[in-house]
């Protein structure tokens, strides 16, 4: 089979799974829907492997294949094909997406067991994977936009999965609205590019762009900035990041899959896919690099103070995606994608561990109420710590190599980029601290009652679940883990998923082991070889590479040591720091007041406009003026007509006579 056949198969399996589960969602007994969904994603992963092996048989220069099923829309000068593009980049993305998705599907089978919405969940999840694969395999802008929007819809459905939970529904709406901003930007960017190059297929657009645009052409910069807005909305970059922490309202495997490992990296993919455009518009890619850097610093500082376990990891995700955006924006594409892969491993793993802990805490997510889970949940402890080590870029763990790859490439660009790299290293320091803040606060310290009970009696007597955001009792009727909710560790599908990801988080670095051994770089290189506008892909020299690794390792170990000092050695120190710097703490806890800013800038004016519309336009103008005015006019007019009807015969006779006299008088005057 050819690579493109495998490409279509990659898409076909999750779609078949979605349809089968969705149509028969009342019929699938027990956990069967989960197994079907997992099998479909597993087959999709195998198809992606098939595409990879088929591709490896070809010459590295000729590894981009296109295929089209039919014409999607065809008019004069416009031909959108139902076509896919299978090249190194899309195969790499397919492998990461389907591989991580498969493990998270496995994990979900156990995690969602006692949920009433089990089958619905897996239909959504398969739909998401299909959309994501469509996004990365799309061969033209039309299909890309379709996948892009599908992914947003799937994200909305899964965030609001527990739809009786008010906070979840609000979070879903927020995510959807912000994603739509990105969708619109992406659509306008595609229009701009189409109007100039007259093409929709990626390869045709890129070839056309080199002929049509001079370097830093105004239209091209506008298009690239719009693409960046789209990427920012999807990848939760400043200033469109506010939806991601709220998206943690969804089930934890969803946070793991969509809001950490795959969907939020779509922005990185988009920039890598349209790299020729960004290279032709260096201004836009510089702005993208600055956005990425600003985001990674901002999110790292906020992650330092979040007390909600999942939200802390969510801010960490935003920060790590900032690194990826920085990487692809300084033209270090394989570095950015390498970090995308390792991040998918360790962040999915961290979320799975968080899900396990939250399961043990009966839905409680506050770090303040956790502690001492080390012996109660040994498997979670080990895997979570591995994830945290990889996140903190501890030497020889996967994140160590990928993060260094990005920062080393940034330094190699020289000039102002060195500032960005330094900021990146500082944020890496903060990353190490917050990663181990989570580990130490959850697994060390005083045992909380849940941990003691689990450790001593080996079981948990759960209370009724409640929403930690507003203390409302949960409605378990439409699906919510009931009181009998399983603890993650005990189920083997979860252990397999977490174990595999932990393996990836430790050894994922071998795909880019400094300059010694970097198969990933060599594999992806040809896809990005065709650069434009005189841009060249930065290759860090050995000296930069090894000094970067050394600095990164030192920073990481120092950060972990500081976290150990603050949270273990001097357990009260963090509280003292908060009291010492209340303003700073307040500022960080309120997430740099972004939500408040948007509330004041957009939400409240809109609400005020809505209220004005309701009280003034609707009730006064429409009801009072248009509707009331018409009826009043008819009423007054008919009252007048009625008052003419006196009912007195003599009056009618008088009127008739008056009419006659009038008529006669008129004729007399006319005839005279």
């Amino acid at each position, binding site marked *: 089979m050819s690579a493109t056949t495998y490409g279509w198969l990659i898409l076909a399996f999750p779609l078949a799974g979605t349809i089968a589960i969705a149509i028969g969602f009342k019929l699938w007994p027990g956990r069967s829907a989960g197994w079907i969904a997992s099998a479909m994603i597993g087959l999709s992963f195998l198809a992606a492997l098939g595409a990879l092996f088929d591709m490896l048989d070809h010459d590295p220069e000729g590894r981009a294949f296109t295929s089209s099923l039919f014409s999607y829309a065809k008019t004069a000068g416009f031909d959108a094909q139902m076509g896919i593009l299978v090249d190194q980049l899309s195969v790499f993305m397919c492998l990461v997406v389907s591989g991580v998705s498969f493990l998270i599907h496995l994990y979900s089978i156990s995690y969602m067991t006692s949920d009433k919405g089990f089958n619905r969940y897996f239909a959504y999840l398969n739909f998401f994977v299909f959309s994501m694969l469509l996004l990365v395999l799309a061969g033209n802008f039309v299909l890309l936009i379709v996948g892009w929007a599908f992914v947003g819809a799937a994200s909305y459905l899964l965030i609001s999965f527990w739809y009786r939970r008010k906070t979840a529904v609000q979070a879903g709406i927020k995510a959807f609205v912000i994603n739509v901003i990105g969708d619109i930007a992406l659509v306008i960017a595609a229009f701009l590019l189409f109007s100039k190059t007259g093409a929709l297929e990626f390869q045709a657009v890129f070839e056309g762009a080199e002929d049509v645009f001079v370097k830093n052409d105004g239209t091209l910069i506008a298009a690239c900035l719009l693409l960046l807005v789209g990427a920012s909305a999807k990848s939760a970059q400043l200033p469109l990041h506010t939806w991601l922490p709220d998206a943690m309202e969804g089930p934890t495997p969803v946070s793991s899959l969509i809001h950490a490992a795959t969907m939020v990296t779509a922005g990185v993919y988009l920039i890598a896919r349209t790299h020729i455009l960004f290279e032709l518009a260096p201004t836009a890619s510089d702005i993208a690099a600055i956005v990425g850097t600003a985001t990674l610093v901002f999110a790292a500082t906020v992650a330092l103070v979040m007390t909600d376990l999942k939200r802390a990891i969510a801010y960490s995700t935003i920060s790590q995606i900032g690194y990826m955006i920085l990487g692809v924006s300084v033209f270090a594409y394989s570095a950015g994608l390498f970090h995308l892969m390792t991040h998918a491993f360790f962040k999915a793993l961290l979320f799975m561990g968080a899900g396990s802990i939250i399961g043990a805490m009966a839905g409680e997510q506050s770090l303040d109420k956790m502690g001492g889970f080390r012996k109660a949940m040994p498997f979670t402890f080990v895997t979570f710590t591995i994830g945290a080590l990889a996140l903190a870029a501890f030497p020889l763990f996967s994140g160590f190599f990928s993060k260094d790859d990005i920062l080393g490439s940034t330094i190699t660009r020289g000039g102002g980029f060195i500032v960005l790299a330094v900021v990146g290293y500082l944020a890496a320091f903060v990353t190490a601290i917050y990663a181990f803040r989570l580990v130490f606060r959850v697994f060390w310290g005083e045992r909380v009652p849940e941990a003691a009970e689990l450790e001593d009696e080996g079981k948990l007597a759960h209370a009724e679940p409640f929403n930690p955001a507003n203390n409302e009792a949960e409605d378990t009727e439409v699906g919510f883990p009931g009181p009998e909710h399983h603890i993650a560790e005990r189920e083997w599908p979860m252990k397999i998923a977490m174990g595999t990801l932990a393996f990836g988080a430790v050894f994922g670095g071998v795909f880019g082991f400094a300059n010694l051994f970097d198969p990933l770089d060599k594999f992806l290189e040809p896809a990005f070889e065709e650069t434009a506008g005189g841009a060249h892909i930065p290759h860090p020299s050995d000296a930069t590479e090894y000094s970067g690794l050394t600095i990164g390792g030192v920073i990481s170990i120092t950060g972990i040591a500081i976290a150990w000092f603050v949270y273990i050695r001097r357990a009260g120190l963090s509280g003292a720091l908060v009291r010492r710097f209340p303003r700073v703490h307040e500022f960080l806890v309120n997430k740099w007041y972004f939500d408040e800013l948007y509330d004041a800038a957009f939400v409240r004016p809109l609400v005020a406009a809505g209220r004005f519309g309701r009280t003034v336009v609707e009730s006064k103008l429409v009801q009072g003026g248009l509707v009331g005015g018409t009826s009043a006019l008819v009423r007054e007019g008919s009252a007048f007509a*009625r008052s003419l*009807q*006196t*009912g007195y*015969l003599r009056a009618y*006779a008088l009127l008739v006579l008056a009419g006659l006299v009038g008529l006669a008088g008129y004729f007399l005057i006319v005839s005279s």
Partner: protein
Amino acid sequence: MDVVWFVVLSAFIFCIGAAGVMTRRNPLVILLCLELMLNGGNLALIAFARMHGNAEGQIFALIVMVVAACEVVVGLGLIVAMYRRKIPIDVDSMSELRG
């Protein structure tokens, strides 16, 4: 004799009838006044017919008389019906059409 006299007389009779229709409340009297108005008109028709020296006006006066007879039949029928149903013989008391 000049036709003007006839026309003036006919106008007088018509006006007397019209004034009666509008001022009297007894339907019988109103019917009588209506007859006066009709006959005022008839007089004018005949006077003009005579002036022109042809029969058309006279024929028209005859038709008016037929119509007047019909009208009296209907009117008297109504009055009898009112009397039978013990409704006061007064046109002002029958003002159901008032808006």
